[in-house]
């Protein structure tokens, strides 16, 4: 291997490192921007007077944040808690099942439980318990209590850092 070859290889490695670092920086910047945007969203949410205005706000936000798994799933939990409220206020069955569906999606996403443990500080036993009950939850008194109390507990743990 002559000096020229070594020089070319070093140059290529340098170029690769530079691109890789740049990609990493861009990714971190993008995630940081999303977090800032999410914090802003949580503040904006507080300005709404009534839950019925919050639901379309979060539905729109969910689409905007689908590039971040963490935020996307936090919004799903938050939105689900408002759907179940909508069900309890107006008796809309569709809202009950929307809430259930969103919660199922979050639990399906978090197959290894790390998201729920890290972001919501709930333990594995609690997660296993919810995971086992959730598929059979229906809009009867027991199901309402389970879904309402689970989502109230989870949504209360969505905090602005």
């Amino acid at each position: 291997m002559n000096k020229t070859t070594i020089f070319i290889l070093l140059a290529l490695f340098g170029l690769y490192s530079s691109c890789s670092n740049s990609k990493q920086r861009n990714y971190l910047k993008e995630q940081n921007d999303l977090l800032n945007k999410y914090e802003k969203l949580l503040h904006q949410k507080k300005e709404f007077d009534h839950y019925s205005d919050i639901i379309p706000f979060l539905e729109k936000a969910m689409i905007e944040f689908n590039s971040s798994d963490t935020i996307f799933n936090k919004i799903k939990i938050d939105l689900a808690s408002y759907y179940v409220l909508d069900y309890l206020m107006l008796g809309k069955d569709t809202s009950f099942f929307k809430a259930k569906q969103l919660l199922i999606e979050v639990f399906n996403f978090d197959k290894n439980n790390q998201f729920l443990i890290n972001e919501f500080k709930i333990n594995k036993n609690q997660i296993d318990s919810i995971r086992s009950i959730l598929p059979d939850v229906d809009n009867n008194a027991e199901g309402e209590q389970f879904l309402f109390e689970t989502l109230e507990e989870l949504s209360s743990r969505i905090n602005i850092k």
Partner: protein
Amino acid sequence: MPDPTGGGTGTNDGGTGTISEIEKKDKPLIDDETEPIEPLEQSSTILAERSEEYNCDDGFVYEQLYPRDPNDNKFDCSEWAYYIIAQVKPILAKEICSSQKYVNTTKFIDYITANGGFRINNPKVGDIVMWTGHIEFVTEVSGEKFVMHGCRSSNYCAPSYMGKSSNGYIWLNTSYEKLNEIASGEFIGFWTP
């Protein structure tokens, strides 16, 4: 012109409960924690049946209820709450309204603030439950869980219950984080008249 005591209307049949019957009851809705608050329920029944009949020019509403708009014969939340209180605690009603011929949530808040203030837990049957822009009555209590009854539309008063699902699950709780978001304005608390 309807009789302010409830006479002269289609609902004064003595069977379903009339305003005059409500007034005869010694126990006001507000003080009894053990019995269902019949006056409230009767009043709301009467109201639901008669809401289309009210005409502010007939004197009944104007003299006793002071709605915001004399040409509007439909109640909002505070007018309805005032209507209920006027049936069971007329002196309190006059104190809340003072000398002005209208009532709104601010009048309730001012009066309650000057008379013991609100508490944010320990609801009791008959309590007023208040937001900065909304008012209802507590009708059922189980610890810190409660059910309430009120008007939730500014355009048309259709008193209904909130806090208990059709399956019987009581979900309204004083610790519920979304209390601010279920009614107009911020949740202030309870007051026992």
